[in-house]
């Protein structure tokens, strides 16, 4: 028999603390759709996606209703298109992106990820075509997300790819200038990309996994914040070890939701269950913010001194609690700090507490990286590439995933307002040091070698 308090606590999490399942993502392999005929390839991938994902949204809604927990986003990720569509030109790659977009509409998912390439050690023909196609592919579609892995701890950092991507990001921003460069919000540049991320824009289905797999991303920053607030109200003298324990227990609960619903969706679809991604993913709503947790921990705002330590504590406690709650943990698994997608974090920028440098420091101890960061539109290609290289270095040296999702907002300067809308949110544009200056270091190109500790064999 369940106790009153067990039932009421779950109701509170749902009612007042934004507990939901952030995303259920169906990963689909497209590798066996390979063809050198673009029409044939597009027909095959459209058929594969619409057939396999036909019931995804309906089942997620049904199972969400059964448990009274909404599945906020239903999404599809596919094999890296640079591999699956390697024979095609960049113009044809744009057609592939449009096909993915149509398929996503047909099955009613809001995003489809996997317009991706893995170029950490070099750029193959298919990779080059896909990267060349990025601006048009992203600006010309609504639902297609792209990711490019430019670095790994084992391979090093491909600086040529980074500079090339900086140019493509600027071009994508220019093509969507009327919407503050929103095309760039659908492109993540990674170091050490995981093969099973359920969250966008970084989701793709790795080449070492099954044909179809369900990966789940949990949420719950509001639940963690309220748990801390309640505990501190009862005992204002809680120390950080006690708070860490509290976050662990809360993360356990949140993760169990993802595990239960994800497994049931996978069973009903007849596909493998992959992983639960233990990430605290915010939305631009009050009470559903990672930034607010910093204030509950006792900081004036995210970004002030102490923020990196607080984030380290938070990230570690979420992983420990979540790992115990799930049989398969993967993806990014950590707290997200996406600037425009988190109301409190964008407020911290507005109030001058958070700079791009502090954000970069914080990414040393959490997942993702410089995420949804609007920067001045006139930031040079070289400076943009240099920011990405810095972030990749953090991932490569620390053997962790890092990424950038930078948006050079066309025609706008630091301090002006960028608006993306919906889950992508809005923010003040952050200032960039030496935004237009030259950068000979980046221009040298080549590969930054892998670190000595990659020699583990």
């Amino acid at each position, binding site marked *: 028999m*369940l106790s009153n308090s067990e039932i009421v606590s779950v109701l509170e999490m749902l009612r007042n603390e934004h507990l939901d399942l952030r995303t259920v993502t169906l990963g689909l392999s497209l590798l066996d759709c390979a063809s050198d005929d673009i029409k044939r390839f597009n027909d095959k991938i459209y058929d594969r996606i619409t057939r396999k994902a036909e019931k995804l949204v309906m089942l997620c809604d049904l199972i969400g209703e059964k448990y009274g927990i909404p599945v906020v986003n239903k999404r599809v990720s596919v094999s890296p298109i640079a591999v699956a569509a390697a024979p095609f030109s960049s113009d044809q790659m744009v057609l592939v992106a449009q096909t993915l977009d149509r398929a996503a509409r047909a099955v009613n998912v809001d995003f489809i990820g996997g317009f991706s390439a893995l170029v950490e050690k070099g750029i193959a023909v298919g990779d080059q075509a896909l990267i060349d196609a990025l601006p048009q592919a992203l600006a010309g579609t609504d639902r297609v997300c792209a990711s490019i892995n430019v670095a790994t701890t084992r391979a090093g950092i491909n600086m040529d790819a980074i500079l090339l991507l900086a140019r493509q990001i600027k071009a994508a921003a220019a093509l969507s200038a009327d919407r503050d460069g929103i095309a760039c919000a659908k492109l993540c540049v990674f170091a050490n990309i995981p093969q099973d991320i359920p969250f966008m824009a970084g989701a793709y289905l790795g080449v070492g996994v099954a044909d179809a797999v369900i990966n789940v991303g949990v949420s719950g920053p509001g639940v963690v914040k309220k748990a801390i607030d309640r505990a501190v109200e009862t005992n204002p003298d809680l120390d950080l070890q006690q708070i860490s324990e509290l976050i662990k227990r809360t993360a356990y609960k949140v993760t169990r*939701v993802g595990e239960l619903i994800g497994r049931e969706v996978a069973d009903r679809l007849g596909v493998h269950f992959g992983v639960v991604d233990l990430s605290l993913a915010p939305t631009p709503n009050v009470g559903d913010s990672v930034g607010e947790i910093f204030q509950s921990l006792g900081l004036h705002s995210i970004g002030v001194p102490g923020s990196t330590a607080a984030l380290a504590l938070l990230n570690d406690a979420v992983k420990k609690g979540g790992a115990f709650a799930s049989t398969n943990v993967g993806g990014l698994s950590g707290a997200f700090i996406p600037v425009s997608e988190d109301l409190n974090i964008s407020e911290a920028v507005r109030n001058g507490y958070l700079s791009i440098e502090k954000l970069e420091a914080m990414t040393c101890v959490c997942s993702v990286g410089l995420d949804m960061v609007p920067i001045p539109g006139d930031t040079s290609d070289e400076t943009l590439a240099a920011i990405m290289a810095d972030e990749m270095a953090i991932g490569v040296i620390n053997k962790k995933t890092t990424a950038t999702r930078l948006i050079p907002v066309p025609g706008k300067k630091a301090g002006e307002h960028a608006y993306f809308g919906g889950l992508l949110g809005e923010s003040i544009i952050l200032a960039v040091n030496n935004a237009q200056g030259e950068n000979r270091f980046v221009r040298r190109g080549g590969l930054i070698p892998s670190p000595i500790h990659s020699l583990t064999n």
Partner: protein
Amino acid sequence: MKKFIISVLGKDRPGIIAAVTRVFFEQEFNIEDVSQTILQAEFSGIFIVTGPDHCDPQGVCRALQTATDGFDMHFHVRLMDPNGSRWTTCACEHFIITTRGPDRKGLVAQITAILAAHNVNVTQLQAVFRGGDEPGRNIMIYEVDIPADIDQSQLNEVLKAKGRELNLEVNIQHKNIFEAINRI
């Protein structure tokens, strides 16, 4: 062997269970099942016992009254069919229905009328009155068995519509979610 179901009601105080179970012991009864709770200041207990064939409900009731003389207790003893089967329709799923909203007369009657009409069995009913100055925090919790072969979306819709009419927030959730979240 005979099987009895015995209900025990009265003002709570120390010694009730001791007195009742002493009678069971003296009459060579074996307790098969028991559920006991205290509502406000009232004791309530239900015992299912087996005992010798010569016992009858009236005799058991008299013995219990004598043993609790001065406690102002009420007993009801009934003979059970030892082979009696449970109420069942078909395969059921276990759900928790909660209603939250201002207290008023007839809430439970109107919700359970809908459940009864859909052949939904209530297995546990609890009230959590945490309202105080906030009547909106009054919660009723119904643990129910919902037959697998009914149209659950329709049931959910009817319950939620009744909730709107009664100014209640109604949630219908599979029991597994509460167990998954709260228990290791």
